[in-house]
């Protein structure tokens, strides 16, 4: 097995891909966006409930590869309890991480469990899979403001 494949499909990613957390839909979301990855046709629908300035509920649906579903699952877990500004900052941090060259120091401090997605830096064409949910979040927040 190639090391890059092993680094990309770490156990936690395969596990989240097979059993994603926060999968489904919310009854009355305050924010929502659907986004597709034109390269591959993957689709993510992200929903939030913001209560008292903080994210109280998250759900993601759609279809996609192990990587995009695992990334959405890990991302959703991290969103609970954050303000929208903090959530956007996390999305930006993830974007920055996947754009780095492979082997750059992991941002475990700022990314938490999302740092496990670092293997995608080795797979340029797959970066959008790792960031699809984060981009949907940015869009959901912008749409609400607009």
């Amino acid at each position, binding site marked *: 097995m*190639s090391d*890059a*494949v092993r680094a990309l499909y770490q156990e936690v990613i395969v596990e989240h891909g097979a059993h994603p957390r926060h999968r489904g839909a919310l009854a009355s979301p305050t924010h929502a966006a659907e986004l597709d990855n034109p*390269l591959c*046709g993957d689709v993510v629908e992200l929903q939030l409930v913001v209560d008292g300035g903080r994210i109280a509920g998250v759900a993601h649906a759609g279809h996609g*590869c192990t990587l995009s579903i695992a990334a959405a699952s890990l991302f959703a877990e991290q969103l609970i309890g954050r303000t929208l500004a903090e959530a956007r900052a996390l999305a930006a941090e993830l974007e920055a991480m996947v754009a780095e060259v492979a082997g750059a120091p992991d941002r475990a401090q700022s990314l938490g469990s999302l740092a496990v997605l670092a293997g995608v830096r080795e797979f340029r064409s797959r970066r959008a899979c790792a960031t699809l949910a984060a981009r949907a979040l940015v869009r959901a927040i912008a749409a609400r403001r607009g």
Partner: protein
Amino acid sequence: MRSAASWRLDFPALEQSVHGTRLAYLDSAATALVPRAVIDAMVSAYTHDAGAVHRGVHALAEAATFAFDAARADVAAWLGVPADEIVLTFGTTDTLSGIAQGWVRPRLAAGDAMIVSELEHHANLVPWQLACAERRAELRVCRIDDAGALDLDHLEQLLADRRVRAVAVTQLSNVTGTAPPLDEIMQRAHARGAIVIVDGAQGAAHLPPSPAGDFYACSGHKLYGPGGTGVLWATRARLEELAPWRTGGGMVARVDYQHARFREPPARFEAGTPNVAGVIGLGAAARYLAALGPARLEHEQRLHARLVGALRELRGVRVLGEPRHALASFVVDGVHPHDLASVLDRGGVAIRAGHHCAQPLHARLGIEASTRASLGLYSDDADIAALVAGIEHAKAVLA
């Protein structure tokens, strides 16, 4: 005669290793690799015959014009048609959009209809969607069965009211690898007053070279030629019916400030400075394929049977439909096509994952995406073995 194994040596792209592994290029349906003969012809075109075509009297312009016209003749000879029936375009997408603009739109009235099949690539679907919407015409979709074969009874029903102006259909599906019976479709369509437009993007490279339908489109880059080149074929009479959709220099005989008189086909449809070196490369590709003769497709068919057989033997792998030529699309239980594509890539295996520009067909087949392995004349058993090993590996990692 040269053996199939030696053909690989003609393709410089196959000399490279990918991720430290032998390259198994199984993505020719997306774009085919290019033989040295084509590359050399294009280098020569840029090095020597570097002038504009059909407008200069100096040596370089003359050389370019001569080489360009010779390339048209080479393409025509390979397809077995007269050279003045070959219009040089920028690809199948370009050709089909041109037919939509130049033949279909002017003839489509409110209440008329067009037919496409469920197999169609977006390039042979979206132009007709737009034309029908603009003209308030109906776009009818002919069913396929689960094997990927066209339902001819349904076609007959769709044609019955004689409102259909044109049937647009693929020569060879880029997803199911099935080839609709074009002669039969032609007979039925003509009997009801409709013409047939054939998307030959896949078929030209993997079926015996011969244009089909009333209008035929194919692409250079799937024919082991350069990108940005393509062909529109039609009889002289059909070309006379077609309005030029791209206008400007080179396609006009006489122009005053108010009017323009067009040149005869095919020049009428080749406005602007063409992709001269590309067309010269396309001519070289046609000569290359002509020299290999029927052995090329015999080799491909043998290998295709082994590809489909190998995929069907794998546990958890389902082949879509009953592919007959060139390619096989499949799904693997528990492994998404994009994850599979990444794992295969690291093993040097290049395949296509996704909807292959046929989203409605994937919806019809009840899936979001698939993986496609497609053959070229340079493909061999080692490529198939690498694919099989890669699929097993992906199952171990992901399923």
